């Protein structure tokens, strides 16, 4: 097994175990957290406010949004402090520092897989008709991973220099939760706001996954980058942004990484 994968496997597994050591329900918590979020939002929007009527199959719609958002935010949140809190090993051993934030994200990926099983159960309960587009979902998730890791590397490297990064990220994550059409259809936003929202690759992935999973009649929830930017070429805009952020963050992390051992 190549060196990188071996390290991620060993360190990721140990950190995942350690994170929930001493908690009575262990990693049940990691799955319970997004589901509890989902439950509350579902109650509020499907039953109390009844905005759910505007979207087709609100349950799956909401669950997809929450699970992807949780994955996005938790991945970045785990990578952000990793160099500062776990970087002392860089002072005793020479190895590629990128392994530290990547290892920190392994546990989040495991949790996400468990959560996807929960989604599968809901899809079965809701009797969603299987569609050919489902095969696109792994590719979309791969794009989301690239985007998350890009942002994660960027903030992890910045955090070594500036301790404000945590506060900035927490605020950003909060704002994105309300701005990213997670619990409301993006179609209710004005056209200009949709254009802005789709600059965020997370929004594009979420909308495409919803579209792939649910399909159905084009309602306000069925808006993709192609609709917003007009034409198939518009699809490329958020994808290119994700790739650009990833490559830029990687280069920045490599440059900064040479000096992490001196700074942590």
């Amino acid at each position, binding site marked *: *097994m190549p*060196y990188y994968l*071996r*390290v991620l496997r*060993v*360190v990721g597994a*140990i950190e995942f175990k*350690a994170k929930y050591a001493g908690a009575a329900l262990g990693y049940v918590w990691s799955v319970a957290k997004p589901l509890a979020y989902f439950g509350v939002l579902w109650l509020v929007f499907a039953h109390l406010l009844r905005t759910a009527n505007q979207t087709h199959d609100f349950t799956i719609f909401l669950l997809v949004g929450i699970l992807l958002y949780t994955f996005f935010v938790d991945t970045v949140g785990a990578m952000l402090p990793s160099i500062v809190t*776990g970087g*002392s*090993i*860089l*002072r*005793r*051993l*020479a*190895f590629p520092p990128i*392994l530290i934030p990547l290892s920190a994200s392994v546990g989040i990926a495991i949790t996400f897989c468990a959560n996807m099983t929960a989604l599968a159960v809901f899809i079965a309960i809701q009797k969603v008709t299987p569609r050919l587009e489902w095969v696109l979902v792994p590719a979309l998730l791969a794009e989301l991973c690239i985007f998350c890791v890009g942002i994660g590397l960027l903030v992890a490297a910045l955090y070594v*220099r*500036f*301790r*404000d990064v945590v506060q900035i990220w927490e605020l950003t994550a909060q704002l994105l939760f309300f701005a990213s059409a997670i619990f409301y259809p993006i179609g209710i936003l004005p056209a200009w706001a949709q254009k802005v929202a789709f600059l965020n690759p997370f929004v594009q992935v979420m909308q495409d996954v919803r579209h792939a999973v649910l399909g159905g009649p084009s309602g306000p929830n069925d808006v993709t980058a192609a609709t917003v930017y007009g034409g198939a070429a518009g699809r490329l805009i958020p994808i290119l942004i994700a790739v650009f952020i990833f490559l830029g963050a990687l280069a920045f992390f490599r440059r900064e990484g*040479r*000096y992490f*051992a*001196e700074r942590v």
Partner: protein
Amino acid sequence: MAAAIEVAGISKSFRIPHEQRTYFKEYFLHPFRRTTYERNDALQSVTFSVDAGEFFGIFGPNGSGKSTLLRILAGIYVPDAGRVRVNGLLSPFIELGIGFNLELNARDNIRINSTLAGLTKRQLDEKFDDILEFSELERFVDQKLKNYSSGMLMRLAYSIAIQIPFDVLLLDEVLAVGDASFQEKCFTTFERFKNEGKTVLLVTHAVELLSRFCDRVLLLESGVVRTIGRAEDVVESYREGALVG
């Protein structure tokens, strides 16, 4: 004889800010204040080479740059100038008490450290018991390292360092906190490495170790190589220097 380590003109300085600016607020409050630095030239054009199979000592007062030098050799720090070449696999034992995750037990720390150092799963399975046995920590393998004494941590770190396959071993103050019996054990391994033709770099303050084991000794003072030579001569010249200075 082929050189195991070649060091050509390496320099390293650290900039120590007079006031640490880690929050943006400090930039907003004092936008025109320039951050001033204290420059610390830890190493200045250090040049030497170590032959394969040599037991090489590095000696010098506190703050003379010994640990910085070792870290550069280990690839942990990047030198500002100069070139370092290490032929063969290198295993470092650097500064006590860092690099372990104190919230994890010895078992997990051994696995993380050895995997990062490049051991495959099979190699690790083979070496794991050897590491524990040498460190004599079998009883404490499932305890978190935060409950370990500094002597126990040192034993664990040394055991890991010598079980990783290496041609060149870097040892920084390895015997500082060990008890007498563990010291004896380390000396036995030193003899073994000499017989096996391994290259060892030993940083120490203990003069008797230098004359007992080292073929040659480098005296480092304020980041500059003062002299390289036989242990007795180097220690002698250090003492004279200290008396005159």
